[in-house]
Protein backbone atom coordinates (compact mmCIF):
# COMPACT_ATOMS: atom_id res chain seq x y z
CA UNK A 1 0.00 0.00 0.00
CA UNK A 2 1.05 3.61 -0.47
CA UNK A 3 2.30 5.27 2.71
CA UNK A 4 -0.14 7.30 4.77
CA UNK A 5 0.75 10.05 7.22
CA UNK A 6 -0.86 11.10 10.49
CA UNK A 7 -0.10 13.20 13.55
CA UNK A 8 -0.22 11.97 17.12
CA UNK A 9 0.05 14.62 19.76
CA UNK A 10 2.45 13.78 22.58
CA UNK A 11 -0.20 13.86 25.28
CA UNK A 12 -2.13 11.11 23.44
CA UNK A 13 0.64 8.49 23.55
CA UNK A 14 -0.32 7.21 27.00
CA UNK A 15 -3.93 6.80 25.94
CA UNK A 16 -2.90 4.97 22.78
CA UNK A 17 -0.87 2.54 24.90
CA UNK A 18 -3.63 1.95 27.44
CA UNK A 19 -6.35 1.45 24.82
CA UNK A 20 -4.18 -0.80 22.67
CA UNK A 21 -3.81 -3.16 25.65
CA UNK A 22 -7.45 -4.15 25.19
CA UNK A 23 -6.80 -5.38 21.65
CA UNK A 24 -3.17 -6.45 21.70
CA UNK A 25 -0.58 -8.18 23.83
CA UNK A 26 1.50 -4.97 24.07
CA UNK A 27 5.28 -5.14 24.28
CA UNK A 28 7.23 -1.99 25.09
CA UNK A 29 10.55 -0.86 26.49
CA UNK A 30 10.64 -0.70 30.25
CA UNK A 31 13.21 -0.77 33.07
CA UNK A 32 13.82 -4.07 34.85
CA UNK A 33 14.54 -4.37 38.59
CA UNK A 34 18.19 -3.43 37.96
CA UNK A 35 17.28 -0.37 35.94
CA UNK A 36 18.27 -1.96 32.62
CA UNK A 37 16.23 -1.11 29.57
CA UNK A 38 14.44 -4.18 28.17
CA UNK A 39 11.54 -5.04 25.91
CA UNK A 40 8.88 -6.31 28.28
CA UNK A 41 5.19 -6.19 29.04
CA UNK A 42 4.64 -3.12 31.25
CA UNK A 43 1.04 -2.97 32.46
CA UNK A 44 0.87 0.78 32.85
CA UNK A 45 2.20 3.61 30.70
CA UNK A 46 4.03 4.91 33.81
CA UNK A 47 6.39 1.97 33.39
CA UNK A 48 6.86 2.44 29.65
CA UNK A 49 10.11 3.96 28.41
CA UNK A 50 8.84 5.64 25.23
CA UNK A 51 12.36 6.80 24.38
CA UNK A 52 14.73 6.16 21.51
CA UNK A 53 17.45 4.68 23.76
CA UNK A 54 18.48 1.23 22.53
CA UNK A 55 18.06 -1.72 24.94
CA UNK A 56 20.95 -4.24 25.05
CA UNK A 57 18.68 -7.06 23.82
CA UNK A 58 16.81 -6.60 20.55
CA UNK A 59 13.11 -7.32 20.00
CA UNK A 60 13.68 -10.46 17.90
CA UNK A 61 12.66 -12.81 20.72
CA UNK A 62 9.01 -11.85 20.17
CA UNK A 63 9.14 -13.49 16.73
CA UNK A 64 11.94 -15.97 17.39
CA UNK A 65 11.97 -16.84 21.09
CA UNK A 66 15.26 -17.90 22.63
CA UNK A 67 13.59 -21.26 23.37
CA UNK A 68 10.35 -22.58 21.91
CA UNK A 69 8.70 -25.98 21.59
CA UNK A 70 8.46 -27.08 17.95
CA UNK A 71 6.97 -30.42 18.89
CA UNK A 72 5.33 -31.82 22.02
CA UNK A 73 5.21 -35.58 22.33
CA UNK A 74 3.58 -37.97 24.71
CA UNK A 75 3.31 -41.75 24.95
CA UNK A 76 -0.15 -43.13 25.70
CA UNK A 77 -0.75 -46.89 25.92
CA UNK A 78 2.19 -47.69 23.69
CA UNK A 79 1.25 -45.03 21.14
CA UNK A 80 3.24 -41.82 20.73
CA UNK A 81 1.39 -38.62 19.93
CA UNK A 82 3.31 -35.69 18.44
CA UNK A 83 1.84 -32.22 18.08
CA UNK A 84 3.00 -28.86 16.79
CA UNK A 85 3.19 -25.66 18.82
CA UNK A 86 0.16 -23.62 19.73
CA UNK A 87 -0.27 -20.35 17.86
CA UNK A 88 -0.33 -17.18 19.99
CA UNK A 89 -3.87 -16.36 21.05
CA UNK A 90 -3.54 -12.56 20.87
CA UNK A 91 -2.06 -10.14 18.37
CA UNK A 92 1.19 -8.57 19.52
CA UNK A 93 1.96 -4.84 19.29
CA UNK A 94 5.58 -3.80 19.78
CA UNK A 95 5.10 -0.26 20.99
CA UNK A 96 8.03 2.13 20.51
CA UNK A 97 10.36 -0.43 18.99
CA UNK A 98 13.71 0.92 17.73
CA UNK A 99 13.98 1.09 13.94
CA UNK A 100 17.03 -1.20 13.84
CA UNK A 101 14.91 -3.86 15.59
CA UNK A 102 11.77 -3.23 13.54
CA UNK A 103 13.48 -3.59 10.16
CA UNK A 104 15.21 -6.78 11.35
CA UNK A 105 11.92 -8.70 11.31
CA UNK A 106 11.50 -8.17 7.58
CA UNK A 107 15.07 -9.35 7.04
CA UNK A 108 14.62 -12.57 9.06
CA UNK A 109 11.22 -13.16 7.41
CA UNK A 110 12.96 -13.75 4.10
CA UNK A 111 14.77 -16.80 5.50
CA UNK A 112 11.75 -18.25 7.28
CA UNK A 113 9.44 -17.97 4.29
CA UNK A 114 12.03 -19.06 1.73
CA UNK A 115 10.59 -22.18 0.05
CA UNK A 116 9.60 -24.05 3.21
CA UNK A 117 7.26 -21.95 5.35
CA UNK A 118 8.41 -21.97 8.97
CA UNK A 119 4.97 -22.11 10.59
CA UNK A 120 5.93 -21.38 14.22
CA UNK A 121 7.87 -18.24 13.25
CA UNK A 122 5.56 -17.00 10.52
CA UNK A 123 2.51 -17.59 12.70
CA UNK A 124 3.86 -15.17 15.29
CA UNK A 125 4.98 -12.68 12.64
CA UNK A 126 1.52 -12.60 11.09
CA UNK A 127 0.20 -11.51 14.47
CA UNK A 128 2.85 -8.89 15.22
CA UNK A 129 2.45 -5.17 14.53
CA UNK A 130 5.43 -2.85 14.88
CA UNK A 131 4.90 0.71 16.06
CA UNK A 132 8.45 2.06 15.79
CA UNK A 133 9.97 5.18 17.30
CA UNK A 134 12.68 6.68 15.10
CA UNK A 135 15.89 7.74 16.87
CA UNK A 136 16.27 11.51 17.36
CA UNK A 137 20.05 11.13 17.45
CA UNK A 138 22.32 8.34 16.27
CA UNK A 139 23.66 6.35 19.20
CA UNK A 140 26.94 4.85 20.32
CA UNK A 141 28.44 2.40 17.79
CA UNK A 142 25.37 2.60 15.51
CA UNK A 143 25.81 2.71 11.76
CA UNK A 144 22.31 2.49 10.32
CA UNK A 145 23.30 5.59 8.32
CA UNK A 146 25.61 3.32 6.32
CA UNK A 147 23.05 0.64 5.45
CA UNK A 148 20.47 1.17 2.68
CA UNK A 149 17.68 -0.68 4.42
CA UNK A 150 15.42 1.97 5.86
CA UNK A 151 11.76 1.93 6.83
CA UNK A 152 11.10 -1.09 4.65
CA UNK A 153 8.33 -3.32 5.91
CA UNK A 154 7.85 -1.49 9.23
CA UNK A 155 4.12 -1.22 9.94
CA UNK A 156 4.15 2.28 11.44
CA UNK A 157 6.94 4.69 12.38
CA UNK A 158 6.73 7.67 14.75
CA UNK A 159 9.04 10.63 14.12
CA UNK A 160 9.41 13.01 17.06
CA UNK A 161 8.77 16.45 15.53
CA UNK A 162 9.01 18.46 18.76
CA UNK A 163 5.37 19.10 19.66
CA UNK A 164 3.92 15.93 18.14
CA UNK A 165 4.77 12.69 16.41
CA UNK A 166 4.53 12.38 12.67
CA UNK A 167 3.26 8.85 12.02
CA UNK A 168 4.12 7.10 8.77
CA UNK A 169 1.92 4.07 8.10
CA UNK A 170 3.19 1.58 5.53
CA UNK A 171 1.23 -1.66 5.88
CA UNK A 172 -2.30 -2.93 6.44
CA UNK A 173 -1.35 -3.89 9.98
CA UNK A 174 -0.19 -0.31 10.59
CA UNK A 175 -3.42 1.00 9.14
CA UNK A 176 -5.47 -1.27 11.40
CA UNK A 177 -3.66 0.18 14.40
CA UNK A 178 -4.55 3.75 13.38
CA UNK A 179 -8.10 2.81 12.38
CA UNK A 180 -8.76 1.23 15.77
CA UNK A 181 -7.95 4.41 17.68
CA UNK A 182 -8.76 6.89 14.94
CA UNK A 183 -9.88 9.65 17.31
CA UNK A 184 -6.32 9.90 18.68
CA UNK A 185 -4.76 10.62 15.29
CA UNK A 186 -5.00 13.79 13.21
CA UNK A 187 -4.44 13.88 9.47
CA UNK A 188 -1.14 15.30 8.28
CA UNK A 189 -1.41 18.16 5.79
CA UNK A 190 2.25 19.19 5.43
CA UNK A 191 4.94 17.70 3.21
CA UNK A 192 5.57 14.69 5.45
CA UNK A 193 8.53 13.25 3.53
CA UNK A 194 10.38 16.59 3.70
CA UNK A 195 9.83 16.68 7.45
CA UNK A 196 11.13 13.11 7.77
CA UNK A 197 14.16 13.97 5.67
CA UNK A 198 14.96 16.98 7.85
CA UNK A 199 14.44 14.83 10.97
CA UNK A 200 16.97 12.27 9.77
CA UNK A 201 19.53 14.91 8.77
CA UNK A 202 19.34 16.37 12.25
CA UNK A 203 19.40 12.95 13.94
CA UNK A 204 22.45 11.87 11.93
CA UNK A 205 20.59 8.85 10.57
CA UNK A 206 20.37 10.11 6.96
CA UNK A 207 22.26 7.81 4.60
CA UNK A 208 25.97 8.48 4.02
CA UNK A 209 28.27 7.12 1.33
CA UNK A 210 29.95 4.74 1.02
CA UNK A 211 27.12 2.42 1.94
CA UNK A 212 28.21 -0.95 3.34
CA UNK A 213 26.36 -2.82 0.57
CA UNK A 214 29.19 -1.71 -1.70
CA UNK A 215 31.67 -3.86 0.24
CA UNK A 216 30.34 -7.12 -1.22
CA UNK A 217 32.41 -7.40 -4.43
CA UNK A 218 35.66 -6.95 -2.48
CA UNK A 219 34.51 -9.28 0.32
CA UNK A 220 33.95 -12.00 -2.28
CA UNK A 221 37.64 -11.79 -3.11
CA UNK A 222 38.80 -11.55 0.49
CA UNK A 223 37.85 -15.02 1.77
CA UNK A 224 41.47 -16.13 1.88
CA UNK A 225 42.87 -12.74 2.97
CA UNK A 226 45.73 -13.35 5.42
CA UNK A 227 44.51 -10.62 7.78
CA UNK A 228 41.44 -12.55 8.94
CA UNK A 229 43.72 -14.55 11.17
CA UNK A 230 45.33 -11.41 12.60
CA UNK A 231 42.17 -9.34 13.03
CA UNK A 232 39.59 -11.95 14.05
CA UNK A 233 41.64 -14.31 16.22
CA UNK A 234 40.91 -12.27 19.34
CA UNK A 235 37.27 -13.45 19.16
CA UNK A 236 36.64 -15.76 22.11
CA UNK A 237 33.55 -17.36 20.56
CA UNK A 238 31.25 -16.30 23.39
CA UNK A 239 28.33 -15.69 21.04
CA UNK A 240 27.24 -12.46 22.73
CA UNK A 241 27.24 -10.67 19.37
CA UNK A 242 24.73 -13.13 17.97
CA UNK A 243 22.43 -13.11 20.99
CA UNK A 244 22.15 -9.30 21.08
CA UNK A 245 21.85 -9.09 17.29
CA UNK A 246 18.36 -8.40 15.89
CA UNK A 247 19.11 -10.23 12.62
CA UNK A 248 21.06 -13.33 13.77
CA UNK A 249 18.61 -16.22 13.53
CA UNK A 250 20.64 -19.45 13.53
CA UNK A 251 19.24 -22.12 15.79
CA UNK A 252 19.69 -25.60 17.18
CA UNK A 253 17.03 -28.27 17.66
CA UNK A 254 17.26 -30.23 20.94
CA UNK A 255 15.00 -32.61 22.81
CA UNK A 256 14.00 -32.01 26.40
CA UNK A 257 12.35 -34.78 28.37
CA UNK A 258 12.34 -38.56 28.28
CA UNK A 259 11.16 -41.15 25.82
CA UNK A 260 7.55 -41.04 27.01
CA UNK A 261 6.97 -37.34 27.29
CA UNK A 262 8.76 -34.15 26.36
CA UNK A 263 9.38 -31.37 23.88
CA UNK A 264 11.54 -30.89 20.81
CA UNK A 265 12.88 -27.36 21.21
CA UNK A 266 14.24 -24.67 18.93
CA UNK A 267 16.96 -22.72 20.75
CA UNK A 268 19.16 -19.84 19.62
CA UNK A 269 22.61 -20.98 18.57
CA UNK A 270 25.70 -19.15 17.38
CA UNK A 271 28.14 -19.68 14.53
CA UNK A 272 31.05 -18.29 16.56
CA UNK A 273 30.98 -21.34 18.86
CA UNK A 274 33.38 -24.25 18.51
CA UNK A 275 30.74 -26.97 18.18
CA UNK A 276 28.51 -25.25 15.61
CA UNK A 277 29.86 -27.22 12.65
CA UNK A 278 31.89 -29.94 14.43
CA UNK A 279 31.27 -33.37 12.86
CA UNK A 280 32.75 -36.78 13.51
CA UNK A 281 34.86 -36.79 10.35
CA UNK A 282 35.75 -33.13 10.06
CA UNK A 283 35.50 -29.62 11.49
CA UNK A 284 35.44 -27.22 8.53
CA UNK A 285 35.82 -24.13 10.73
CA UNK A 286 38.63 -25.38 12.89
CA UNK A 287 40.03 -21.99 13.95
CA UNK A 288 38.27 -19.16 15.76
CA UNK A 289 38.93 -16.60 13.03
CA UNK A 290 37.15 -18.86 10.53
CA UNK A 291 34.10 -18.87 12.77
CA UNK A 292 34.11 -15.09 13.09
CA UNK A 293 34.63 -14.79 9.33
CA UNK A 294 31.51 -16.89 8.81
CA UNK A 295 29.46 -14.44 10.89
CA UNK A 296 30.68 -11.40 9.03
CA UNK A 297 30.47 -12.90 5.55
CA UNK A 298 27.03 -14.39 6.20
CA UNK A 299 25.80 -10.88 6.91
CA UNK A 300 27.57 -8.94 4.19
CA UNK A 301 27.99 -11.49 1.39
CA UNK A 302 26.09 -14.82 1.64
CA UNK A 303 22.73 -13.53 2.85
CA UNK A 304 22.63 -10.53 0.46
CA UNK A 305 23.50 -12.84 -2.41
CA UNK A 306 20.41 -14.94 -1.76
CA UNK A 307 17.95 -12.55 -0.20
CA UNK A 308 18.88 -9.00 -1.25
CA UNK A 309 19.48 -6.73 1.74
CA UNK A 310 22.31 -7.05 4.26
CA UNK A 311 21.79 -9.32 7.26
CA UNK A 312 22.54 -6.32 9.49
CA UNK A 313 20.59 -3.22 10.43
CA UNK A 314 23.59 -1.34 11.78
CA UNK A 315 22.34 -1.37 15.35
CA UNK A 316 25.91 -1.53 16.65
CA UNK A 317 25.04 -3.88 19.53
CA UNK A 318 27.65 -6.45 18.57
CA UNK A 319 30.28 -3.72 18.79
CA UNK A 320 29.07 -2.31 22.11
CA UNK A 321 28.75 -5.68 23.82
CA UNK A 322 31.73 -7.61 22.44
CA UNK A 323 34.07 -8.36 25.36
CA UNK A 324 37.15 -8.02 23.14
CA UNK A 325 35.88 -5.01 21.18
CA UNK A 326 35.72 -6.53 17.73
CA UNK A 327 34.19 -3.92 15.42
CA UNK A 328 32.20 -5.43 12.58
CA UNK A 329 31.75 -2.12 10.71
CA UNK A 330 35.49 -1.45 10.62
CA UNK A 331 36.21 -5.03 9.50
CA UNK A 332 33.63 -4.81 6.70
CA UNK A 333 35.16 -1.53 5.58
CA UNK A 334 38.63 -3.03 5.59
CA UNK A 335 37.99 -6.42 3.95
CA UNK A 336 35.37 -4.80 1.73
CA UNK A 337 37.91 -2.37 0.31
CA UNK A 338 36.24 0.80 1.63
CA UNK A 339 39.21 1.63 3.88
CA UNK A 340 42.89 0.85 3.39
CA UNK A 341 43.89 0.61 6.99
CA UNK A 342 42.73 -2.22 9.22
CA UNK A 343 41.03 -1.49 12.55
CA UNK A 344 43.66 -0.59 15.09
CA UNK A 345 45.63 1.72 12.80
CA UNK A 346 48.86 0.58 11.14
CA UNK A 347 48.65 -1.61 8.09
CA UNK A 348 49.84 -5.09 8.99
CA UNK A 349 48.44 -7.09 6.13
CA UNK A 350 50.31 -8.76 3.31
Amino acid sequence: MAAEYYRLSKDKVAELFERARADYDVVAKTRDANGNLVYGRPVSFDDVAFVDEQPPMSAKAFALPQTEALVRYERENDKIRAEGPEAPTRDILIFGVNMCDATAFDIIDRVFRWDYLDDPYLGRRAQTTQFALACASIQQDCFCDRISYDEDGVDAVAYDLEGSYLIKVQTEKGRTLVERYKDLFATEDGDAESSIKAFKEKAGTAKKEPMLESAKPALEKAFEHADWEILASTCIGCGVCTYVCPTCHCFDIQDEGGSSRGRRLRVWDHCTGRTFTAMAAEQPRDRQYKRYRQRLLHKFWYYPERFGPLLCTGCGRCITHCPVKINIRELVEYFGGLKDTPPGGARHGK
Partner: protein
Amino acid sequence: MGNNSERLYVPRLARVAAVVDETPTIKTFRLAFDDGPRPDFKCGQFGEFGIFGVGEATFCFASPPDREYLEITVKNVGKVTRAFHNLNEGDVITLRGPYGNWFPYDDLKGKKLLFIGGGIGQAPLRGLLWTCLENRGDFEQLDLIYAAREECELVYERELVEFEGRDDLAVTLALDPVCPGEPIPGWRGRTSFVPPILEEERPSPEDRVVITCGPPIMIKLVAKSLLEKLDYAPGQIWTTLEMKMKCGLGKCGRCNIGSVYVCKDGPVFNYEQILSFPKEF
Protein backbone atom coordinates in the same frame (compact mmCIF):
# COMPACT_ATOMS: atom_id res chain seq x y z
CA MET B 1 10.66 -29.33 -3.80
CA GLY B 2 8.67 -26.81 -1.75
CA ASN B 3 7.01 -29.39 0.47
CA ASN B 4 5.06 -26.92 2.55
CA SER B 5 3.34 -29.22 4.94
CA GLU B 6 1.56 -27.11 7.48
CA ARG B 7 3.57 -28.22 10.49
CA LEU B 8 7.11 -28.12 9.30
CA TYR B 9 8.87 -29.57 12.34
CA VAL B 10 6.31 -32.16 13.40
CA PRO B 11 7.78 -35.50 12.31
CA ARG B 12 6.15 -38.65 11.06
CA LEU B 13 6.61 -41.73 13.21
CA ALA B 14 8.11 -44.92 11.90
CA ARG B 15 8.65 -48.36 13.43
CA VAL B 16 11.89 -50.29 13.28
CA ALA B 17 11.00 -53.44 11.33
CA ALA B 18 14.48 -54.99 11.14
CA VAL B 19 18.05 -54.26 12.18
CA VAL B 20 21.14 -55.48 10.32
CA ASP B 21 24.60 -55.34 11.92
CA GLU B 22 26.82 -54.20 9.07
CA THR B 23 30.10 -53.58 10.89
CA PRO B 24 31.08 -53.11 14.54
CA THR B 25 30.04 -49.43 14.25
CA ILE B 26 27.41 -49.43 11.48
CA LYS B 27 23.84 -50.75 11.47
CA THR B 28 21.09 -50.68 8.84
CA PHE B 29 17.50 -50.11 9.92
CA ARG B 30 14.49 -51.10 7.88
CA LEU B 31 11.56 -48.83 8.71
CA ALA B 32 7.82 -49.46 8.55
CA PHE B 33 5.03 -46.89 8.55
CA ASP B 34 1.77 -47.64 10.29
CA ASP B 35 0.11 -44.31 9.39
CA GLY B 36 0.19 -44.56 5.61
CA PRO B 37 2.56 -45.17 2.70
CA ARG B 38 6.26 -44.63 3.27
CA PRO B 39 7.61 -41.25 2.11
CA ASP B 40 8.53 -40.97 -1.54
CA PHE B 41 12.10 -39.88 -2.22
CA LYS B 42 14.73 -39.73 -4.93
CA CYS B 43 18.27 -41.14 -4.86
CA GLY B 44 20.57 -38.77 -2.98
CA GLN B 45 17.97 -37.16 -0.73
CA PHE B 46 18.15 -37.22 3.05
CA GLY B 47 15.90 -36.90 6.06
CA GLU B 48 16.07 -35.76 9.66
CA PHE B 49 15.65 -38.92 11.72
CA GLY B 50 15.22 -38.82 15.47
CA ILE B 51 14.40 -40.50 18.71
CA PHE B 52 12.16 -38.58 21.09
CA GLY B 53 14.08 -37.55 24.18
CA VAL B 54 17.43 -37.80 22.38
CA GLY B 55 17.21 -35.63 19.27
CA GLU B 56 17.48 -35.64 15.50
CA ALA B 57 20.32 -36.46 13.09
CA THR B 58 20.73 -36.37 9.32
CA PHE B 59 20.80 -39.63 7.35
CA CYS B 60 20.40 -40.31 3.67
CA PHE B 61 17.77 -42.66 2.30
CA ALA B 62 19.93 -45.70 1.68
CA SER B 63 17.47 -47.96 -0.15
CA PRO B 64 16.35 -47.74 -3.78
CA PRO B 65 13.26 -45.53 -4.19
CA ASP B 66 11.21 -48.20 -5.96
CA ARG B 67 11.36 -50.78 -3.14
CA GLU B 68 8.49 -51.28 -0.76
CA TYR B 69 10.72 -50.79 2.25
CA LEU B 70 12.84 -47.88 3.38
CA GLU B 71 16.28 -48.30 4.90
CA ILE B 72 18.82 -46.08 6.58
CA THR B 73 22.36 -46.98 7.51
CA VAL B 74 23.78 -45.38 10.63
CA LYS B 75 27.34 -45.10 11.90
CA ASN B 76 27.69 -44.73 15.64
CA VAL B 77 29.65 -41.51 16.17
CA GLY B 78 27.81 -39.56 18.87
CA LYS B 79 24.69 -38.93 20.88
CA VAL B 80 21.84 -39.59 18.44
CA THR B 81 23.61 -42.29 16.43
CA ARG B 82 24.47 -44.16 19.65
CA ALA B 83 20.77 -44.13 20.59
CA PHE B 84 19.92 -45.51 17.13
CA HIS B 85 22.33 -48.37 17.72
CA ASN B 86 20.42 -49.24 20.89
CA LEU B 87 17.09 -49.55 19.01
CA ASN B 88 15.27 -52.86 18.80
CA GLU B 89 12.60 -54.12 16.44
CA GLY B 90 9.32 -52.39 17.19
CA ASP B 91 10.87 -49.21 18.60
CA VAL B 92 9.55 -45.91 17.25
CA ILE B 93 11.66 -43.27 15.53
CA THR B 94 10.76 -39.86 14.06
CA LEU B 95 11.30 -38.72 10.50
CA ARG B 96 11.12 -35.41 8.61
CA GLY B 97 11.81 -35.25 4.90
CA PRO B 98 12.80 -36.11 2.24
CA TYR B 99 14.90 -32.98 1.89
CA GLY B 100 17.57 -31.78 -0.49
CA ASN B 101 18.29 -32.47 -4.15
CA TRP B 102 19.09 -35.76 -5.87
CA PHE B 103 21.36 -37.36 -8.46
CA PRO B 104 20.48 -36.23 -12.01
CA TYR B 105 19.47 -39.67 -13.21
CA ASP B 106 18.23 -38.59 -16.64
CA ASP B 107 21.50 -36.77 -17.41
CA LEU B 108 23.46 -39.89 -16.49
CA LYS B 109 21.60 -42.14 -18.94
CA GLY B 110 23.68 -43.46 -21.81
CA LYS B 111 26.95 -42.92 -19.92
CA LYS B 112 29.51 -45.19 -18.36
CA LEU B 113 29.19 -44.78 -14.60
CA LEU B 114 32.00 -45.32 -12.15
CA PHE B 115 30.86 -45.45 -8.53
CA ILE B 116 33.50 -44.87 -5.89
CA GLY B 117 32.41 -45.43 -2.30
CA GLY B 118 34.35 -45.24 0.92
CA GLY B 119 33.11 -46.73 4.20
CA ILE B 120 29.64 -45.50 5.12
CA GLY B 121 29.83 -43.27 2.00
CA GLN B 122 28.39 -46.25 0.16
CA ALA B 123 24.99 -45.49 1.77
CA PRO B 124 23.97 -42.53 -0.46
CA LEU B 125 25.30 -44.37 -3.55
CA ARG B 126 23.46 -47.62 -2.85
CA GLY B 127 19.99 -46.57 -4.00
CA LEU B 128 21.33 -45.12 -7.23
CA LEU B 129 23.53 -48.13 -7.95
CA TRP B 130 20.58 -50.51 -7.56
CA THR B 131 18.39 -48.27 -9.71
CA CYS B 132 21.04 -48.31 -12.44
CA LEU B 133 21.34 -52.10 -12.20
CA GLU B 134 17.58 -52.50 -12.48
CA ASN B 135 17.63 -50.28 -15.59
CA ARG B 136 20.89 -51.68 -16.87
CA GLY B 137 19.98 -50.92 -20.49
CA ASP B 138 20.17 -47.18 -19.70
CA PHE B 139 23.93 -47.40 -19.21
CA GLU B 140 26.84 -48.42 -21.36
CA GLN B 141 29.03 -49.61 -18.50
CA LEU B 142 28.86 -49.78 -14.70
CA ASP B 143 31.87 -49.99 -12.40
CA LEU B 144 32.15 -49.92 -8.63
CA ILE B 145 35.22 -49.29 -6.54
CA TYR B 146 34.43 -49.72 -2.87
CA ALA B 147 37.04 -49.08 -0.22
CA ALA B 148 37.11 -49.46 3.54
CA ARG B 149 39.69 -49.31 6.26
CA GLU B 150 39.37 -52.96 7.23
CA GLU B 151 37.40 -55.95 6.00
CA CYS B 152 35.00 -55.70 8.95
CA GLU B 153 34.24 -52.09 7.89
CA LEU B 154 32.69 -53.07 4.53
CA VAL B 155 29.01 -52.12 4.54
CA TYR B 156 26.35 -54.19 2.72
CA GLU B 157 28.72 -57.19 2.58
CA ARG B 158 25.90 -59.55 1.46
CA GLU B 159 25.18 -57.28 -1.52
CA LEU B 160 28.85 -56.94 -2.42
CA VAL B 161 29.05 -60.71 -2.79
CA GLU B 162 26.02 -60.58 -5.10
CA PHE B 163 27.58 -57.70 -7.08
CA GLU B 164 30.82 -59.63 -7.51
CA GLY B 165 28.86 -62.47 -9.09
CA ARG B 166 27.21 -60.25 -11.71
CA ASP B 167 28.64 -59.86 -15.19
CA ASP B 168 27.02 -56.47 -15.85
CA LEU B 169 28.92 -54.67 -13.06
CA ALA B 170 32.69 -54.64 -12.53
CA VAL B 171 33.53 -54.58 -8.84
CA THR B 172 36.84 -53.65 -7.23
CA LEU B 173 37.02 -53.95 -3.47
CA ALA B 174 39.92 -52.38 -1.61
CA LEU B 175 41.15 -52.16 1.95
CA ASP B 176 43.52 -49.54 3.29
CA PRO B 177 47.05 -50.93 3.21
CA VAL B 178 48.54 -51.48 6.65
CA CYS B 179 51.94 -51.92 5.07
CA PRO B 180 51.72 -50.58 1.49
CA GLY B 181 51.95 -53.28 -1.16
CA GLU B 182 51.69 -56.15 1.30
CA PRO B 183 48.64 -58.38 0.81
CA ILE B 184 46.29 -58.95 3.74
CA PRO B 185 45.98 -62.70 4.44
CA GLY B 186 42.64 -64.13 3.32
CA TRP B 187 41.48 -60.89 1.66
CA ARG B 188 39.88 -61.38 -1.76
CA GLY B 189 40.23 -57.79 -2.94
CA ARG B 190 43.01 -55.27 -3.32
CA THR B 191 45.14 -53.63 -0.68
CA SER B 192 45.38 -50.02 -1.77
CA PHE B 193 43.96 -46.54 -1.38
CA VAL B 194 41.64 -45.50 -4.21
CA PRO B 195 43.81 -42.99 -6.14
CA PRO B 196 46.57 -45.54 -6.99
CA ILE B 197 43.87 -47.90 -8.30
CA LEU B 198 42.51 -45.14 -10.55
CA GLU B 199 45.96 -44.22 -11.76
CA GLU B 200 46.72 -47.84 -12.56
CA GLU B 201 43.41 -48.79 -14.22
CA ARG B 202 43.06 -45.40 -15.94
CA PRO B 203 39.29 -45.48 -16.67
CA SER B 204 39.09 -43.13 -19.63
CA PRO B 205 37.13 -39.91 -19.18
CA GLU B 206 35.35 -40.49 -22.47
CA ASP B 207 31.56 -40.66 -21.88
CA ARG B 208 32.20 -41.49 -18.24
CA VAL B 209 30.77 -39.95 -15.08
CA VAL B 210 32.19 -40.63 -11.63
CA ILE B 211 29.87 -40.69 -8.62
CA THR B 212 31.68 -40.72 -5.33
CA CYS B 213 31.00 -40.46 -1.62
CA GLY B 214 33.16 -41.21 1.36
CA PRO B 215 35.31 -39.52 3.97
CA PRO B 216 36.11 -35.90 2.95
CA ILE B 217 39.79 -36.73 2.49
CA MET B 218 38.96 -39.59 0.11
CA ILE B 219 36.66 -37.38 -2.00
CA LYS B 220 39.37 -34.74 -2.25
CA LEU B 221 42.11 -37.19 -3.25
CA VAL B 222 39.88 -39.05 -5.73
CA ALA B 223 38.90 -35.76 -7.39
CA LYS B 224 42.51 -34.61 -7.48
CA SER B 225 43.59 -37.83 -9.13
CA LEU B 226 40.77 -37.74 -11.72
CA LEU B 227 41.31 -34.07 -12.56
CA GLU B 228 45.10 -33.93 -12.55
CA LYS B 229 46.21 -37.41 -13.59
CA LEU B 230 43.31 -38.75 -15.68
CA ASP B 231 42.15 -35.60 -17.50
CA TYR B 232 38.59 -35.61 -16.21
CA ALA B 233 36.64 -32.35 -16.33
CA PRO B 234 35.20 -31.23 -12.96
CA GLY B 235 31.70 -31.54 -14.44
CA GLN B 236 32.21 -35.30 -14.81
CA ILE B 237 32.41 -35.84 -11.05
CA TRP B 238 29.38 -35.92 -8.75
CA THR B 239 29.46 -36.25 -4.99
CA THR B 240 27.30 -35.70 -1.95
CA LEU B 241 28.63 -33.40 0.75
CA GLU B 242 28.33 -33.76 4.47
CA MET B 243 28.05 -30.59 6.52
CA LYS B 244 26.54 -30.45 9.98
CA MET B 245 22.78 -30.00 9.63
CA LYS B 246 19.92 -29.43 12.03
CA CYS B 247 16.81 -28.28 10.17
CA GLY B 248 17.39 -29.62 6.66
CA LEU B 249 15.18 -26.77 5.46
CA GLY B 250 17.48 -23.81 4.84
CA LYS B 251 16.54 -22.10 8.11
CA CYS B 252 18.95 -22.96 10.93
CA GLY B 253 22.01 -21.50 9.19
CA ARG B 254 24.34 -24.36 9.94
CA CYS B 255 25.19 -26.13 6.70
CA ASN B 256 26.34 -23.30 4.45
CA ILE B 257 29.48 -23.14 2.37
CA GLY B 258 29.51 -19.54 1.21
CA SER B 259 26.03 -18.65 0.00
CA VAL B 260 25.23 -22.29 -0.76
CA TYR B 261 23.02 -24.15 1.70
CA VAL B 262 24.09 -27.78 1.49
CA CYS B 263 20.66 -28.89 2.77
CA LYS B 264 18.73 -27.01 0.06
CA ASP B 265 21.13 -26.68 -2.88
CA GLY B 266 22.68 -30.07 -2.15
CA PRO B 267 23.65 -32.48 -0.75
CA VAL B 268 24.40 -33.66 -4.31
CA PHE B 269 26.92 -31.43 -6.09
CA ASN B 270 28.89 -31.44 -9.25
CA TYR B 271 32.62 -30.90 -8.72
CA GLU B 272 32.50 -27.81 -10.92
CA GLN B 273 30.18 -26.22 -8.34
CA ILE B 274 32.39 -27.36 -5.50
CA LEU B 275 35.45 -25.73 -7.04
CA SER B 276 33.59 -22.40 -7.12
CA PHE B 277 32.86 -22.47 -3.37
CA PRO B 278 34.94 -20.42 -0.92
CA LYS B 279 37.79 -22.65 0.28
CA GLU B 280 36.02 -23.69 3.44
CA PHE B 281 35.79 -27.47 3.24
